[in-house]
């Protein structure tokens, strides 16, 4: 579904990622673990085409590195960036509509998103910047899910949220697995990762290291010490 090989990526003259390899299978929740600055966010941005990149990112047989950034979501890749990056000046309804940009008629998908996050339905006319943190995260999720992605990129979706909200986000992500949507998740909290992830890939200083299943990881806690330093 997603096959990254020998990827180099960075900003301007600064190279952040080197020799990155990663594969994501349909319907799996794949977590990226690593210290701050290891390059997790840059990897997601490289997939979206928001940073300079070289190498190969194959998605369903298509080479993403040769596509302009706006073609990436059209291929079924949804993105929830770090800090959510909603269109804060636009209303909740308008933010949702941006998520529906790639399709002709989005009424049915829109209804489904509002059923998934009923709180958003009560706030449609409100500007996104005035929502609470949890509501903003719901909107960021709904905006990305409105693309009906087959691959969802989530960058620290539970950062700064209260426990009930973290549970809701977790439920949404695990439900997606049932519909064969793959999720590439960047998350700092190891215990949260172990609870949802199918596989984990460690990133260190811009290089991908071991990839292993969540069960294998439970048997090798020394890896967590080494790459995350808990």
């Amino acid at each position, binding site marked *: 579904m997603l096959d990254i090989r020998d990827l180099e990526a960075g900003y301007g003259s600064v190279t952040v990622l080197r020799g990155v390899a990663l594969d994501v299978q349909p319907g799996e929740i794949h977590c990226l673990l690593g210290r701050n600055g290891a390059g997790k966010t840059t990897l997601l941005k490289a997939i*979206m*085409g*928001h940073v300079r990149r070289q190498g190969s990112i194959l998605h369903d047989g298509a080479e993403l590195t040769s596509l*302009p*950034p*706006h*073609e*990436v*979501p*059209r291929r079924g890749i949804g*993105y929830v*960036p770090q800090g959510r*990056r909603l*269109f*804060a*000046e*636009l209303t909740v309804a*308008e933010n949702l*509509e*941006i*998520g529906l*940009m*790639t399709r002709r008629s989005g009424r049915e998908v829109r209804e489904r998103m509002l059923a998934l996050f009923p709180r958003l339905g009560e706030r449609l006319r409100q500007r996104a910047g005035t929502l609470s943190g949890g509501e903003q995260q719901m909107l960021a999720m709904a*905006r990305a899910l409105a*693309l009906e992605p087959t691959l969802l990129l989530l960058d620290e979706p539970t950062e700064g949220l209260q426990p009930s909200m973290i549970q809701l986000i977790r439920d949404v992500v695990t439900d997606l697995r049932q519909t064969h949507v793959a999720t590439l998740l960047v998350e700092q909290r190891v215990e949260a990762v172990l609870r949802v992830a199918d596989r984990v890939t460690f990133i260190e200083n811009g290089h991908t290291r071991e990839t292993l299943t969540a069960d294998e990881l439970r048997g090798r806690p020394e890896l967590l010490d080494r790459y995350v330093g808990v």
Partner: protein
Amino acid sequence: MDWSWFPFEMPHPALLWAGVLEGIVLSAVLALTALGLSLVFGVMRIVNVAHGEFYMLGAVLAYAVTSVIGGHPALGFTVALIVAPLLVGALAAASDWLVLKRLNYEPEATIVATIGMLYIIQQLSLEFFGPDARPVVAPFDWRIRLPWFGYSGYKFVVVGAAILLMIGVWVLMARTRIGLIMRATQFDREMASAFGIPVDRVFAGVFALGAGLAAIGAVLIVPVQQAHYLMGGDPLLLSFIVVIIGGLGSLKGTVVAALLIGLSDGIISTLFTPTLAKILATLLVAMVLVFRPQGLFGTRAA
């Protein structure tokens, strides 16, 4: 009260009304031109120094079109009103594609590039149309009798057309899918592209729309002012003044500031001297930059 210290002669009251009317006409055209500049800066973060040349080109093309098409003046004028903004918009989209896109829309580089575009357009216009001011006949010729003097009915039409166009731009921005795409791109171009919005095509469209608005303003005013290859300087300066005072990216601010600058320019130029009007406008810009740098209606830049 003793007014003997005042360095100007006290004018006749009818002159005041003439100044107000001239100011309103100036405001209307200025609002259109400044709106184009404001849209381009708002969405693309580009200071388009060539904006006044797109205005000039609109006027010169209006002359070219009306001199080719014979018959009733209204016919040629109507064609010019449609053709000139389209041609200018197409030229703007092409220069976006050929120049600005290749500079990755870097703010500093695009300023230099648009200065270059200014001179290229100006000199080409001099080459093809010559150094003379060219008149365009108004599409109709009736005068409205006011209590103090007769006044050109055409100028009222200019004001009406400008108001309609501004309402149109507002509807486009606030009520349509294209407007939503433009606002999303303005807010965060990277996230806009993450949802399938082709940012480079939006930019080409916005640059064309901005230039087209300046060209429409010029076609509307050219029966009053004449077309000339150096006529782009004043609209550029006044548009910058309006955009700074009104606040970048604010439609309301642009309209209010255009009225403020247009009216004060019209009244002060008529009653005293045009130089005094420009001095006061520049002073106002300085005050705004010092005390309210985001403009009267603008929001603080992130």
